[in-house]
């Protein structure tokens, strides 16, 4: 659950020095192996050691028509569903020679909508993305500040290749302790991998 991340330049291992001071550190990695999983929890990955976090995930595919719908966990590892996850975003999508774009919004207590309902169900165009959490433990955010996050994600379903960029928040001050990856239904197929990185600004 702890350690430093090998960067993508020349070093085999070590930390990535940030421009502002702290180090960008790999905190946890989760991967679905063997057989499908209905959900994947990464517990306790957010601590006061870091303020900014990035969650990189890739090779996401569901075994049915489902969209990515994660939730955050509290310090008791329970899903935080006491308040709506408000999200909004811009989209770019279409079939192989089509395109459309627009914007949308959503709110749900059950999960964090990232794709406006677009499914992650395309072996050739698996879903990948990054979720950015500016301060899930509220180490620098005022006590009354809400939980906020933003993200970018791309993927595909039958006849559609899509990308979404969005923002979101919850109107609560409960510190996030971890995250649960899941869909609105169905199971996550083997190959999905997510890594949590922390950064002290």
């Amino acid at each position, binding site marked *: *659950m*702890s350690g430093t991340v090998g960067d993508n330049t020349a070093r085999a291992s070590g930390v990535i020095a940030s421009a502002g001071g702290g180090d960008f550190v790999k905190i*946890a990695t*989760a991967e*679905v192996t*063997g*057989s*499908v*999983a*209905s*959900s*994947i*929890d*990464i*517990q*306790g*990955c957010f601590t006061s050691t870091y303020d900014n976090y990035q969650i990189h995930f890739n090779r996401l595919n569901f075994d049915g028509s489902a969209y990515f*719908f994660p939730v955050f966990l509290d310090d008791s590892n329970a899903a935080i569903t006491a308040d709506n996850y408000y999200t909004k975003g811009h989209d770019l999508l279409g079939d192989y020679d089509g395109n459309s774009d627009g914007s949308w919004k*959503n709110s*749900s207590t*059950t*999960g964090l909508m990232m794709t406006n*309902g677009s499914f992650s169900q395309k072996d050739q165009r698996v879903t990948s993305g990054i979720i950015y959490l500016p301060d899930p433990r509220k180490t620098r955010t005022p006590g009354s500040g809400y939980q906020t996050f933003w993200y970018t994600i791309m993927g595909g379903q039958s006849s559609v290749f899509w990308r979404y960029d969005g923002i979101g928040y919850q109107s609560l001050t409960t510190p996030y302790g971890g995250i649960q990856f899941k869909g*609105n*239904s169905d*199971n996550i197929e083997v190959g999905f991998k997510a890594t949590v990185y922390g950064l002290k600004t």
Partner: protein
Amino acid sequence: MEKLIYKKDGTVERVTLTAEEEAARNADIAKVKAEDDERNAAREAVATQKATDSKAGNDKLIALGLTQDQVTAMTGFVPLSIQYQNLIDAGKTAEEATTLTGYTPPEEPPE
């Protein structure tokens, strides 16, 4: 049905959902489906109204004497029949063009 749990101490568990957890999951799925259905219905209603208004406005401008090219240049509205023909001209089959536009050309009367 199984879930994966990566714990803070570094251990990993693959756990079969209890009956209660499965029931809760199924309830969540049903709740989200209801939310999705409501959102999709609202979105479809907005899109249908927009399409209706766009066509009505287009037809009124045509009735005033503007050409379709002039109206399209001003409003961006392209009638389905022209979208269909553009796809045919681009090499799509009649079936593909109908699928993409929802437009089926009227049958020509027998000679």
